[in-house]
């Protein structure tokens, strides 16, 4: 029974992608992480390319610089990784991801709203 459980667990683990990175490259202000996203995307889309080498080197350096507490250098490294990514189709950085909000798809103005109002000229 224990072996079967182990087997099922191992199979589930095998199905989970080894990488925890999705492809969206966002400038979150965390240079080592962001540079890693960029490098990973370029290595997937253009393996072995100059852009991939450049992005990987920049991501490695960003990690080293961030660990050493040199944030300005780490951000410059992340910029290098982002620029390399932006030369590869499908790896363009996303500069802003809109926030989910509760606004209506259609502007309800001038439509008497979703329900008749108690009073007023447009009701």
């Amino acid at each position, binding site marked *: 029974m224990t*072996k079967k459980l*182990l*087997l099922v667990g191992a*199979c589930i*683990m*095998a199905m989970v*992608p*080894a*990488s925890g*990175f*999705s*492809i969206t490259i966002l*400038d*979150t*202000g*965390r240079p080592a992480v962001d540079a890693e996203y960029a490098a*990973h*995307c370029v*290595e*997937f*889309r*253009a*393996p072995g390319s100059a852009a991939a080498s450049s992005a*990987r080197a920049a991501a490695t350096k960003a990690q080293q610089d961030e660990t050493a507490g040199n944030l300005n250098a780490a*951000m*410059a490294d*992340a*910029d290098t990784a*982002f*620029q*390399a990514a*932006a*030369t590869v*189709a*499908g*790896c*363009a950085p996303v*500069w*802003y991801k809109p*926030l*989910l*909000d*509760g606004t*209506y*798809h*259609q*502007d309800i*103005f*001038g439509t*008497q*709203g*979703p*329900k008749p*109002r*108690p*009073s*007023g*000229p*447009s*009701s």
Partner: protein
Amino acid sequence: MLMIIKKPTIGLIALILAVLVWGTATFAEEPPRPWDLSLRFFTGYDSNVPLVPKSTDFQGRRATWTLGAGAEGSYKFVQEKQWELGTGGSFVQTWNNNNLSSFDLTSFAPRLFGTYFFQMGTLPGQVGMAYDFRHDLLGGNEFENSHTLSWDVTVLPTPRLSTGLYYHLAFEDFLNEGANAPLTSRDAVNHAVGANATYSFGYNKPSIGLNYQFSHNNADGQNFTFDSHAVSVRFITPVIRPVKLVLEAGYSSQDYTRFTPQPVRTQDNQNYGATLLFPLTRHLSADVGYKFARYIGSQTQFSAERHIVTVGLTYDFR
């Protein structure tokens, strides 16, 4: 080896572990994680949730404190080097107090999308196509369904500049067609074409984005047939690391070309927004935002103002 042959279960586990080790070793060429998911909780103040005109004797409530929750995500079931296909969507629920629960929004928006990536000479680009369905309820009652097909093309002339063109074809279906459908039905086929560009000055530096859109709303009710020109600009800049400030402004001019009675209705609408983004951890970020919208109609019953303040918390499974 003999033991593995004798014990198939152990052999299988060993094989799976070997695959995992191999997968880690070839990490670089592994497809990226195929899914994205984020959860969001927000609260805020809306000064005019029913969008009541300024010149009115309306006596009801219009301001509310809002509570909201939402999720959005995607799953790419095909993720190749040059193209991908996926499904995704979002869900949002808001709750209003002050007896304005009839404006509580429940929105389901699933989508299908496909993208092809190409190099135009040395310039990277992509073409995309998507189908979006949206089902909105207000106060628990069905409000609108829409189906949107969209096509877009994006090219990066330089690594810091992204430019794009798009076309959206939307079919809008409202539950309530009004008292006189030939005049008041909002059901429509909406065509929108647009162009956009975003320039970034670099990582953790400002970026600016511009968008222009022309749309023609061919509504069943002639009072909702209009042509619209809209421009918007978004400026993002770091303030104090890692905090960022997002400034937005938009203007749209709408001509309701078949409005009855005469004179024809026109609208000049403006919106402005400022949002501070606070990344708290790799996964968690907070935001505080203020938006102001001003609707200036050629007729006073279509002029209104709205102030919205929002505080939110977003968790990204990055």
